[in-house]
């Protein structure tokens, strides 16, 4: 396995260029199914293969709280341009993650906080990690897909 250069202080885009050149993409079998509105169908988050390779390699991606800080800045009514982009580049990068840890990171990065912070409140989970084979085989009735109500928030490990 190739060693990651010391990337703290290097622009994240440059790190991604290095990763694209040196790492093999990793197609994950994991999928994240979540519902952020009772009126809409379930959404399915698929990890990017190059991003997953960066997560597994370590030393490239910033901690996920950096994205939350940037999102907070962007949500301000006066926002026009990021002024704290340095957080992406200067914060110590994440060490190598397992694929499962990477999925947890991705959920916190790319799913709405209202979903993952409260995933187990309510009569059924708002978010489920599954393998792609567990999704319907065709996209027929795609807009009616929902997380099954047979899942309980108390026995998800079963």
């Amino acid at each position, binding site marked *: 396995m190739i060693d990651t250069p010391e990337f703290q202080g290097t*622009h994240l*885009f440059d790190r991604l260029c290095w990763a694209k050149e040196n790492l093999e993409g990793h*197609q994950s079998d994991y999928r994240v199914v979540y519902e952020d509105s009772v009126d809409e169908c379930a*959404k399915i988050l698929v990890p*990017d*293969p190059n*991003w997953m390779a960066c997560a597994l390699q370590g030393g490239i991606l910033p901690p996920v709280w950096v994205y939350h800080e940037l999102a907070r800045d962007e949500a301000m009514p006066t926002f026009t341009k990021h002024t704290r982009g340095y957080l992406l580049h200067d914060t110590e990068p994440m060490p190598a993650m397992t694929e499962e840890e990477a999925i947890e990171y991705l959920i916190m990065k*790319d799913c709405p906080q209202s979903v993952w912070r409260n995933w187990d409140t309510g009569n059924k989970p708002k978010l489920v990690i599954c393998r792609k084979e567990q999704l319907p085989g065709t*996209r027929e009735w*795609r807009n009616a897909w929902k997380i099954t109500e047979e899942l309980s928030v108390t026995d998800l490990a079963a």
Partner: protein
Amino acid sequence: MALGKIKADTLEHSTAGSLDTQYVVKGSAKAWARSGSAAINESFNTSGFTDNGTGDYTIAFSSAFSTNTFPGTTAGLGTAARSVNYSNSQTTSIDLDTFVSSTGSRTDTATGFQINGDLA
């Protein structure tokens, strides 16, 4: 960082003139991808693809853009007449919406896009 580095402000051809390297740095795409309705096939600077329903997808970026008003281009891939819009631009994501060109109804379509603009 242990990488080779060439620093230059100008690229000059022997006969065909010169080019400021800022044109290259500022003008290159900062994120691009080709995706189907269920996965990303080829990409750069994207972290995840969310299938929100028929013809409705979200692409998230790894390296955030400095503003959410960046320009981009999209394309529907294949022989059928399809329209692909991007909307709801955030500094870390965009939505792609795909339609049948003749009717305007949403449909699943393989898409390609690239985003320019400045990074945070």
